[in-house]
């Protein structure tokens, strides 16, 4: 699902409960990450739950694109990962650098997950994705 579609879906919900149920649902539908990738190497530190992010570089029409896979042991965070992946996956490093993730989460009505004190990993995830974009 692309991010525009997600924003439109989130607009349909009036209350946080439906939003969170949808978030959990998104997480449940995230493609499974192979157990071997649940390793320290792909772990994102700075989260209260365990979060893994795996970048895969591909070439398409002569352009370098980065795809991401991810997982978490917490359901709501897994939903957030699903959103993060739909924002960042299949983009060029330059595009990744330019995306303003804060605006997107504000549009989704999930701004509370941006607060640094939350340490739920959104900040750490974004940082890690930008880091991968800068070195790959």
């Amino acid at each position: 699902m692309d991010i525009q579609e997600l924003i439109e879906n989130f607009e349909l919900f009036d209350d946080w409960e439906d939003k969170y149920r949808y978030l959990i649902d998104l997480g449940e539908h995230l493609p499974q990450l192979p157990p071997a990738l649940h390793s320290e190497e792909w772990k994102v530190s700075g989260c209260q739950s365990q979060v893994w992010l795996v970048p895969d570089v591909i070439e398409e029409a002569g352009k370098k694109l980065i795809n991401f896979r991810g997982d978490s042991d917490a359901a709501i965070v897994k939903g957030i990962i699903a959103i993060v992946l739909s924002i960042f996956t299949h983009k060029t490093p330059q595009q990744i650098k330019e995306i303003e993730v804060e605006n997107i989460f504000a549009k989704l009505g999930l701004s509370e997950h941006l607060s640094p004190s939350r340490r739920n990993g959104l900040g750490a995830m974004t940082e890690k994705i930008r880091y991968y974009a800068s070195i790959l």
Partner: protein
Amino acid sequence: MYDINEIRKDFPILNIQINGKPNTFLDTAASAQKPQCVIDTLVRVYSGTYANVHRGSYYLSEQITGLYEQAREIIKTFINAASSHEIIYTRNATEAFNLIAYSWGRNFLKTGDEVLISEAEHHANLIPWQILRDELGIKLKIFKIANDGSYIEDEYLKLLNEKTKLVSVTAMSNVLGTVFPIKKMVSQAHKVGALFAVDACQYAVHRQIDVQDWDCDFLAFSGHKTYGPSGVGVLYGKMSVLEQMLPYQVGGDMVDTVSFEHTTYALPPSRFEAGTPAIVDAIALGSALKYMMNIGWARLEAHEQDLIVYASQQLQEIAGLKIIGTAPDKGGVFSFDLNGIHAQDVAFILDKEGVSIRTGHHCAEPLVKRMGYNSLARASIGLYTSREDIDRFIQALYKVSSFF
């Protein structure tokens, strides 16, 4: 018992709303909310009596030094120390343990000596000893607790011997609530010639401390957990022990005489209080402890005991909920697992209902792992917690269950 509604009026933050819901604050074990008298002290001192302490011979400095030292007297009374000279202001309990490790440990421990702690220690009472172990070649021994979180005397005595130079144990676990029988443990430690340090961070919030009765050599607690400001904590040390210790940090306000060749250190507690301290926070900590003592320990404990029983009953009725830490003698801390739902998911949904709890490893990662978890949810109570708080918490937990 007391009229909880009257008590709650003293804590302005309890009136705010969170996500449109009443503020159900159940994270006192991490940091307590502040009564109006503490807030007033901060404002009053900054507005009318502020200067540096122990420095100038002028009116304001004398006034504030008086208040600062009065607060030390209040702390002395709070833990029943023999003298206020045994009270060292620190930033928090973490700094207190680092101070013990640095100023006592580095001077008195040698290769082969043993430091004994429990499985239930906070990182602040674990990592300083790991560092000494690696630096000095001492051994760090850790005695086991029971699966329900209870203290097991045999496990303690099994590891206590003549090589033990220091026992450092929490009086009340921040994860399990377990209360350790400190007085007896101290006497057993002294028999083998070991000193005894107490982590009283949680205990000090809920029960009366008597360092002379316990006969412990060190005791630490944090001001922000005992309804005082953040940034100030307390280390108690027996004078006979403190006198032999070298400074922790060096600089201003901790010396007797200084020349370019040599420095003579001041007597305790000044020796351990280098630099300008958290002056106003220390004074306001005095107000917080006075507030607690004015309520009275018997009434405070009766109120909290009632809540502990009430909350335990309610929690046990929730299908799939398991309380982690069910020692017969425990304080107002409830770590729990709800049907294997990740603690963070629990906390996110509780937050939406205005309920604040702590999740994660609670700065006691080995203990959480030992209990079989990576992350735990924890609710904890304070003197202002009401039955209505517990009811809202329980209702919110049912809501959490409905999501999964």
